[in-house]
């Protein structure tokens, strides 16, 4: 911003669909999305800017430290409902998922569920933050959030023995990794191209890394 005082960047929330919608209809030159493009949207040009791990989280007092992809799938499909199946003292699992349409949920379903549906008995929250808030307060809960947002109040589980560390996400040994995209109707030009170059350049990537994401370069 200091170097381009004349450029104007409007920031608007509303989720991935809002970003894609704005780019599709020309309201914005670039839209940001944390989910992959679907159907018609595939006409847009996609520019991957970062990778993000999806961490499966539990309360810090939970003795569990690793879980298998299969176990996660069984729990989220509703086949396993009790912690006793994982060798813990019997208690219902308070399962938390994201709302339908969320990029995190879409990536989670794609990476974990293999066509099975997430059980309707799961609690649904509309942000990573509120999932984390519930897991931090409930000893029997299990949820998933963006790995960049894991803090000391929750514990990220290793999946099949691999923790969601930066290195593991970058080299994809950690299995739950999704892409963050910028989308545009046409090949970016002018100020738009400068922005994309900046994001993909060392400075932009450094900022993304400092926000807990993992760069693409």
């Amino acid at each position, binding site marked *: 911003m200091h170097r381009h005082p004349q450029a104007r960047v409007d920031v608007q*929330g*509303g*989720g*991935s*669909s*809002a970003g*894609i*919608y704005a780019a599709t209809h020309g309201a914005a030159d670039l839209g940001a999305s944390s*989910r992959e493009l*679907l*159907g*018609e*949207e595939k006409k847009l040009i996609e520019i991957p800017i970062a990778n993000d791990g999806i961490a499966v989280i539990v309360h810090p007092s939970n003795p569990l430290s690793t879980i298998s992809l299969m176990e996660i799938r069984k729990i989220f499909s509703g086949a396993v409902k009790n912690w006793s199946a994982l060798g813990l003292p019997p208690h*219902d699992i*308070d399962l938390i998922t994201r*709302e*339908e*349409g*969320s*990029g995190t949920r*879409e990536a989670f379903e794609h990476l974990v569920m293999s066509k099975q*549906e997430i059980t*309707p*008995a*799961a*609690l*649904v*929250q*509309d942000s990573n933050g*509120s999932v984390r*808030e*519930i897991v931090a*307060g*409930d000893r*029997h*809960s299990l949820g998933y959030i963006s790995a960049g947002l894991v803090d000391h109040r929750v514990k990220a589980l290793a999946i099949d023995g691999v923790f969601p560390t930066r290195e593991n996400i970058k080299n994809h040994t950690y299995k739950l990794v999704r892409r963050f995209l910028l989308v545009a109707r046409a090949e970016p030009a002018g100020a738009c191209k400068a922005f994309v170059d900046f994001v993909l350049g060392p400075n932009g990537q450094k900022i993304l890394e400092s926000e807990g994401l993992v760069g693409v370069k």
Partner: protein
Amino acid sequence: MMQREKFIERGLLLLALSSIGSLALITIFIFIEGFPLILSTGLKNFILSSHWAPTKGHFGILAMIISSVLVTLGAMVIGVPLGLSCAIVLAEFSPKRLKMVLKPTLELLAGIPSVVYGFLGVIWLVPLIRNYLGGPGLSLLAASIILGIMILPTVISISIDALTAVPDLYRDGSLALGATRWQTVSRVVLPAASSGIITAIILGMGRAIGETMAVIMVAGNALQIPTSVLDPVRTLTSNIALELGYAAGRHREALFATGIVLFVIIMILNLSATLITRRR
């Protein structure tokens, strides 16, 4: 002079119509956006199925309709006795000066933003329910309690108006016949004010069924039909607000269609409130 008078009249009429016009626009917009989906899914599949997976082509909102009804009933069970007794005390039994302090205080409740109610619910109520009653805490019960409190201002202020509208002649007559004050209130004043009180309850219901933010925060938003008050539930309003952020295409239409169902329910409630008041 007459010219000017006419001009002002017309101007005011135009302003009044513009507010009705915006209501009409909202209605038309919701129906245009949502109706195609109801037609293509079929009304029966839409409101009688509880399979909601809009990104996979399943649009059943039965679980949410049931949850909305249950949450609202729960709010009534908690809010109506509290609100009504509060109104009776304020209108019939309290000294003028106490009433002058209490009534504005209660009306202040209505000014608290719903997100604050929701936040208090998450911080206090939900952990209490989780620790002492079990389940995840975010539940039908939590939502009912929070909504029960939120409808108090509506129920209380309209009930007080209904009670004070009962002429003092009725009270005097009853007392003169030897009835106690409580007998007077319960057998004479309450029946005389009943249509106003029912209006208060119906408007409270409208408020409860339309509330969104606080409910999203404390209800848990699960998609199942609840089997216990400790189960998490998702209401019609929560469904729209939760998913609109990321919804596209048919999913977005389905949320507007949810809005149509909600719109019809609230219209029915408001119409019956109007009819009951008019009958008086």
